[in-house]
């Protein structure tokens, strides 16, 4: 039994409500010195809310937080930082226009002072990078850094303030398998130096690899707490989901004719995001093509080209065997391309529009929904009702504003909108990001069904597990270059990870 002084962090019966939703329901948690506790739960289980309360972004409705035996005032990130809590957010909190050093020093000096000790603080950052294996150039502009480097800056921010407790929110979601290993190395060094870690994740194998203890959340409640050495992945999965959810399985299929082709396509760089470099890609009927890679390596450029938002700077795209003269979102839709965008809140839907309006957002100009410029709202509402029924969209009705829907239901409406016209080609960009397991299974089963009906599916995901379990062929994209096609099951995650990190491309181009 650990002594009371070994407990560095204690959350006591934290409850947080958002309107009618109880995001955290009497959650208690203790973290001991030198321990890694994994906070496990699927999307929407309340992990991030809990950590935002701990860090002072939110104020809990009930319950209290104690760090090193001292109560932490609610709603005060500064107090959390001063108590030695450092948080690495899932979405990086960095100012792109500032240097690494400036991001790290921000808020560490009294605001109303002249600057001093620049070189001393730089030396400290360099020492920390060395000790923890966090290579990053202190004078680089953050806007020019890769995703992995940005995460290192986030960790350095916490270490620079002498954090004793590190909270990492889904830190591996954006990393290659090798980068994940390096991160775990850093975390082990931190533990050896006496830090304690809360590791938030929904990836079981990572939790098993790094954590001493697991606390499982479901629907805002703690549903289980186990030592990792006394459990296994299956047990954790069952606890997390509350039973078993059958994930749809896709058997390998051979390719039909190519429906969408990239021929030596190049695009210009966009800020820090690299453009495509002579990419050749075939999307074939009856296949799911998985595009793996660390985000920001050219996925957006490929998605924009297929979606009609961009045209190649050089090279060509061939749609259903034809060159397309005026490529635009509307011609893409007209060519039978179903587009599931990466961000369903900002790109896929209009929050204050009704379900009906969102259902016809792409098709409103077609016969049936409008005639000579006049909308036929009755027909539009009929379409929305159809989708609601066929795709099991849980909502108050077609005239409700879509902002009231959960992410899963929003995604189902988008699925209905794009799949109902029986598309030949589907681009699904991060289609299950942020969804719970039930919704994930639903989206995947719809994609598989569309493939089985002959559609060519392009699946873009940061989640290598998702890519490997669904794709018939896999390409890896890195620095705007595309790897050769790997048939399902022909490469391990580690091998794909090497490609994601940029290895193998030069050899491949020599061989070609």
């Amino acid at each position, binding site marked *: 039994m650990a002594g009371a002084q070994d407990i560095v962090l204690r959350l006591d019966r934290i409850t947080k409500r958002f309107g009618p939703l109880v995001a955290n329901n009497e959650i208690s948690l203790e973290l001991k010195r030198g321990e890694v506790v994994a906070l496990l739960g699927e999307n929407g289980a309340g992990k991030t809310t809990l950590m935002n309360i701990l860090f002072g972004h939110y*104020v809990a409705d009930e319950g209290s937080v104690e760090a090193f035996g001292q109560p932490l005032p609610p709603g005060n990130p500064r107090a959390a930082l001063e108590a030695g809590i450092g948080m690495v957010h899932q979405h990086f909190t960095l100012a792109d226009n500032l240097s690494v050093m400036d991001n790290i020093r921000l808020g560490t000096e009294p605001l109303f002072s002249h600057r001093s000790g620049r070189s001393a603080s730089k030396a400290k950052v360099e020492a920390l990078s060395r000790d923890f294996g966090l290579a990053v150039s202190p004078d680089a502009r953050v806007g020019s850094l890769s995703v992995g480097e940005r995460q290192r800056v986030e960790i350095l921010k916490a270490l620079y303030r002498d954090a004793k407790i590190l909270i990492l929110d889904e830190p591996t979601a954006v990393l290659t398998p090798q980068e994940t290993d390096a991160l775990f190395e850093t975390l082990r060094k931190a533990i050896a130096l006496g830090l304690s870690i809360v590791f938030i994740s929904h990836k079981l194998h990572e939790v098993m690899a790094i954590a001493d203890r697991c606390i499982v959340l479901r629907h805002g409640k703690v549903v289980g707490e186990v030592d990792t050495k006394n459990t296994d992945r299956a047990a954790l999965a069952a606890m997390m989901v509350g039973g078993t959810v059958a994930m749809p399985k896709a058997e390998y299929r051979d390719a039909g004719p190519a429906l969408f082709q990239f021929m030596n396509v190049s695009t210009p760089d966009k800020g820090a995001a690299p453009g495509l470099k002579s990419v050749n890609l075939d999307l074939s009927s009856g296949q799911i093509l998985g595009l793996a890679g660390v985000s920001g390596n050219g996925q957006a450029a490929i998605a924009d080209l297929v979606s009609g938002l961009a045209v190649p700077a050089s090279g060509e795209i061939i749609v259903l065997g034809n060159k397309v003269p005026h490529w635009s979102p509307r011609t893409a839709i007209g060519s039978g391309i179903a587009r599931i965008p990466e961000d369903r809140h900002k790109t896929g839907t209009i929050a204050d529009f009704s379900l009906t309006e969102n259902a016809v957002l792409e098709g409103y100009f077609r016969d049936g929904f*409008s005639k000579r410029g006049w909308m036929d709202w009755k027909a539009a509402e009929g379409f929305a009702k159809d989708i609601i029924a066929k795709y099991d969209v849980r909502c108050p009705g077609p005239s409700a504003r879509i902002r009231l829907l959960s992410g899963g239901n929003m995604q189902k409406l988008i699925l209905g909108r794009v799949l109902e016209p029986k598309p030949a080609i589907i681009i699904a960009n991060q289609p299950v990001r942020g969804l719970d397991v039930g919704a994930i299974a639903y989206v995947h089963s719809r994609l598989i069904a569309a493939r089985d009906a002959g559609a060519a599916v392009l699946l873009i995901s940061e989640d290598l597990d998702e890519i490997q379990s669904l794709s018939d062929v896999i390409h890896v994209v890195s620095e705007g270059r595309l790897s050769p096609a790997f048939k399902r099951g022909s490469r391990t995650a580690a091998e794909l990870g090497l490609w994601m990190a940029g290895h193998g491309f030069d050899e491949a181009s020599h061989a070609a």
Partner: protein
Amino acid sequence: MRLEPVANPNLARQLGYPAAALVATVLVASLLALMAGANPFATLGLILKGAAGSRFALLETLNRATPLIFTGLAVAVAFRAKLWNIGAEAQLYAGAIVAVLLGTGAIGSPFVLPVSAAAAMLLGALVLLGPVLLKTRLGVDEVVTTLLFNFIMLLIVSWLLEGPMKDPAGMGWPKSTALIPEARLPRIVTGLRLHWGFGLALIAAVIVWVIQTRTTLGFEMRAVGQNQQAARFAGMPVNSVLIKTALLSGGLAALAGWSEVAGLKGHLSLDLSPGFGYTGIIVAMLALLHPIGVVFTALFVAGIFVGSDAMSRAAGVPTYIADMLLATALLFMVLAISLTRFRVVRG
């Protein structure tokens, strides 16, 4: 503090906050009256009486509301598409210039009225087209350009009135030659000082409402305004929607100036508009950008102006109280509308 969206605001919330905003505005008005050494109740009473206390007052209010309906619609149409047209004042004068250009004998009846109205809308649209093309082509922010155009346009009018359009019989006063009778808008009822510009404004409001709710263009305008990124992704021609919005908005604002010249004044002078273009922003915002609502808020705003003028003469409170009240009402109302949709929570 933090704002948390209210999922389904109830009726009390939806009406309570705007009502509170109105009450707060009245309180500010009372305070201003007290500062001016007048009795607040008497002052408010005088404003009300001055705005609607007699047939003359009422007609004056309707006349004053006419250009405000047009500029309010112009702003409502543009803001709905998140096109920040702050240049209704310039477009208004563009319409007024056309009314004089074509109404002083260049065209004879019976075509002069429809032709000059159409031409006025066209010129107003073109005046806004410049800043909008700069926005869509080069990414130049339209707020500042449309604002600056207001000043440029006033100088152009000043030049026209001292040069090419100068009334030779004007005795040195900068005003244009008068419109021919055929170019004047007739009165709605003979003998009553209310011209057909008011009728046109009402018709314009209905047309804008139909466009916004029933047509594909209206759907596109609303979508572009709510979320341009999603509209573009969905295949909407965002730039062309913005340009069409600009043409409609500029055209509506131009009608304000055109109807003031053709309906009320009969000539163009530099004091044609006491800021109708800017007041249109208040009219539109108070109406929550709803075209039918614009008619009512324009009447309200016009009433405040007309009533304050009358009150000022009687009670000695400076007439600028009207501008202060409306600016206050605008700020209170945007806050109130936001509070109907978000609640303030701790942390």
